[in-house]
């Protein structure tokens, strides 16, 4: 059951970093990057600690909601909700954003020096931390929002800082990339908004959660034309970069500065998966069931396409970006089965992916720092002897993606696969065979690009260009990465923290027999 | 047929024609003047009373004010036209001064040859 808190603690924990971040450009003149990073870390730790403590309180496990902080006759009431569904997302985002903030300090110092070396004058590091903290806090707000308009506002609030992060600190043709990113996701967002408005104007409310009864407006849009639901869903799918509308993602995620990629790639796009359940499914239950089979196909396609493209990449960050597409396929797959196991797996996989992919992106970043902008896998090789710890961390990162213990990935993939097979069995033999084949291919592909990449980077002969490089094995960068990985491994041991409440929560919502 | 109205509207149409189709700045401004004069004529005609007198009370009319009111023409359009004429003169003055300047700059009065602004 959802409990209403007497004090808007969730809101404060989101707004505090969002508003205080404005002071960073001014702080940036006084403080060193490292101290700035610590301030940002502490700010972002606030929501993380808040949600963890709320979620760990047994009486609040069923969900906790703030008193509404804004209400309007037709916009409805805005509030913040932490429940079993949003908890894995909130926790994953909180963890990754806080730790990546620490990672940013050394990386961005390097990046800004590098850009100045190229004769560019990027905005100061204070501006970076302002945008970074805003971006993180907006994502947190996104996951916790209880109102469709509120959700859209946070969606755009997350989009804007990330756009500026790419356009100011990105690599390559960053202006083009950033515009592409902005316009694609803005189109997705507006599509979503139009659907939301159509929903709101015919049902009379924009609330996902009814603030009086504290129950979800399940199936409220059941009688609306399917177009409304399709608009919302397609808007989210664009943001999620599933196959067909994924064009913007490899560019944006590969060219963003690495700490930002580490947030963009796993966190921001995964949130759309969350919104598919929270918004598309809960509000449009019947219509969503109708299109779930199409989504299943789309998910398999995305999974395999992302894997294939990842195999073909030479640029490490681009490879990771395509692998994100593939992992989005997994999340969507879990969701589209609409079985308890599948959806639980999908939600859990967000966390797996958030941790694993941020580890990998940070590894890519540390390679860039340590080897002066090295991104091409073809030029790497035999680095394990030079950077053993980084190599280990990369291994752990890939283990997350492939789903091999001791990582959370095992559980999430397991649940997704079990859920998918449940669904496939219900669909008939041919479907079962086809889907199984796809699953095997998909899993094989993930394993292939993971281990193949590992081998190419860390094993084999060191190219002559890199042979002379001397590297410090243990830097600030790797410490942070290790911290993320350790939390991820710890979650492997206690996945029940998230799984059990999720199952209890989803049980009554999902159709009993798929 | 109400000739006053029709002719007023003809003047308006004629002014419109000059304004839109002439290629000389001065003629365009003349068109503007004709157009507004048409409107003034129309306004004045609106106030005419068949067989009416001017709206000036004189002599013995002071003794028969109701009778005067029943025979005089409408004073309001006259007042409006007075105002409007002045306004129109102002516009024409400004227009002509701009035309003078334009001629100094371009040595032509053909607006289609004054093409600095594009887009």
């Amino acid at each position: 059951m959802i409990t209403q808190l007497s004090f808007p603690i969730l809101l404060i924990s989101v707004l505090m970093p969002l508003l205080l971040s404005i002071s960073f450009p001014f702080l940036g003149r006084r403080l060193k990057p490292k101290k700035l990073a610590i301030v940002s870390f502490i700010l972002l730790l606030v929501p993380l600690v808040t949600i963890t403590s709320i979620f760990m309180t047994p009486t609040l496990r069923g969900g906790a909601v703030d008193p509404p902080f804004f209400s309007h006759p037709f916009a409805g009431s805005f509030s913040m909700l932490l429940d079993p569904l949003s908890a894995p997302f909130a926790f994953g985002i909180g963890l990754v954003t806080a730790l990546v903030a620490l990672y940013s300090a050394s990386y961005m110092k390097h990046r800004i020096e590098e850009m100045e070396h190229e004769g560019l004058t990027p905005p100061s590091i204070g501006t970076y931390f302002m945008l970074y903290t805003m971006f993180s806090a907006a994502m947190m707000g996104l996951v916790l929002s209880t109102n469709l308009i509120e959700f859209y506002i946070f969606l755009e609030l997350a989009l804007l800082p990330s756009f500026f992060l790419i356009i100011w600190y990105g690599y390559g043709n960053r202006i083009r990339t950033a515009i592409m990113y902005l316009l694609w996701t803005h189109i997705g967002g507006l599509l979503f908004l139009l659907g939301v408005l159509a929903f709101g104007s015919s049902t009379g409310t924009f609330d996902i959660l009814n603030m009086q009864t504290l129950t979800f407006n399940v199936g409220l849009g059941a009688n609306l034309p399917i177009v409304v639901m399709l608009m919302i869903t397609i808007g989210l799918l664009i943001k999620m970069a599933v196959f067909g509308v994924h064009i913007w993602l490899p560019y944006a995620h590969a060219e963003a500065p690495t700490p930002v990629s580490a947030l963009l790639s796993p966190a921001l796009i995964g949130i759309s998966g969350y919104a598919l359940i929270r918004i598309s499914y809960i509000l449009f239950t019947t219509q969503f069931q109708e299109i779930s089979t199409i989504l299943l196909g789309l998910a398999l396609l995305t999974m395999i396409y992302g894997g294939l493209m990842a195999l073909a990449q030479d640029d490490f960050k681009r490879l990771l970006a395509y692998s994100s597409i593939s992992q989005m396929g997994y999340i969507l797959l879990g969701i589209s089965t609409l079985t308890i196991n599948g959806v639980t797996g999908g939600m859990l996989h967000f966390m797996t992916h958030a941790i694993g992919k941020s580890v990998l992106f940070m590894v890519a970043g540390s390679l860039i720092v340590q080897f002066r902008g090295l991104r091409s896998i073809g030029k790497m090789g035999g680095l394990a002897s030079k950077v053993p710890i980084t190599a280990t961390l990369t291994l752990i990162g890939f283990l997350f993606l492939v789903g091999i213990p001791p990582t959370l990935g095992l559980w999430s993939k397991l649940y997704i696969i079990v859920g998918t097979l449940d669904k496939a069995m219900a669909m008939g033999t041919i479907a079962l065979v086809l889907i199984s084949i796809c699953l095997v291919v998909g899993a094989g592909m993930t394993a292939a690009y993971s281990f193949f990449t590992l081998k190419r980077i860390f094993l084999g002969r060191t190219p002559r260009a890199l042979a002379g490089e001397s590297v410090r094995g243990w830097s600030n960068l790797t410490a942070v990465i290790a911290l993320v990985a350790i939390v991820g491994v710890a979650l492997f041991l206690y996945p029940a923290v998230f799984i059990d409440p999720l199952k209890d929560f989803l049980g009554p919502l999902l159709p009993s027999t798929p | 047929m109400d000739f006053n109205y029709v002719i007023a509207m003809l003047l308006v149409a004629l002014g419109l024609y000059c304004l839109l189709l002439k290629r000389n700045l001065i003629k365009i401004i003349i068109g503007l003047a004709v157009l507004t004069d048409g409107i003034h004529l129309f306004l004045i005609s609106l106030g005419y009373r068949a067989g009416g007198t001017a709206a000036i009370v004189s002599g013995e009319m002071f003794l028969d004010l109701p009778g005067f009111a029943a025979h005089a023409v409408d004073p309001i359009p006259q007042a409006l036209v007075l105002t409007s004429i002045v306004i129109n003169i102002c516009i024409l003055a400004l227009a002509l001064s701009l035309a003078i300047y334009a001629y100094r700059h371009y040595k032509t009065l053909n607006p289609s040859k004054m093409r600095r602004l594009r887009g």
Partner: protein
Amino acid sequence: MKRVLTFGMVVAVGALLIFTVSTDLLPFGSFPQRQVGEDIKNAIGQQILVEAPEDTGSANVVTSVVWGYRGYDTLGEVTVLFTAVVGVLAVLRAVGKRE
């Protein structure tokens, strides 16, 4: 082509205006009547004609309208005149010096 179209448009507008004023208005010379609904009402000018000589004491009713009833318009008119003077001065300021 464009000119022909414009010319056609001008003719059409003129014809429409002429048609309108000659059908939809009461015939020329029919002040003070104005058709409002089924009953025919007097224009405000008639009321002014009745009241003005006593209200303002001016022999010329037009004067009383210009300076009295619609004094604010006259003020506006003077302002327009002033604006135009300032405007012309602004546009033509120091023409001689520039040559």
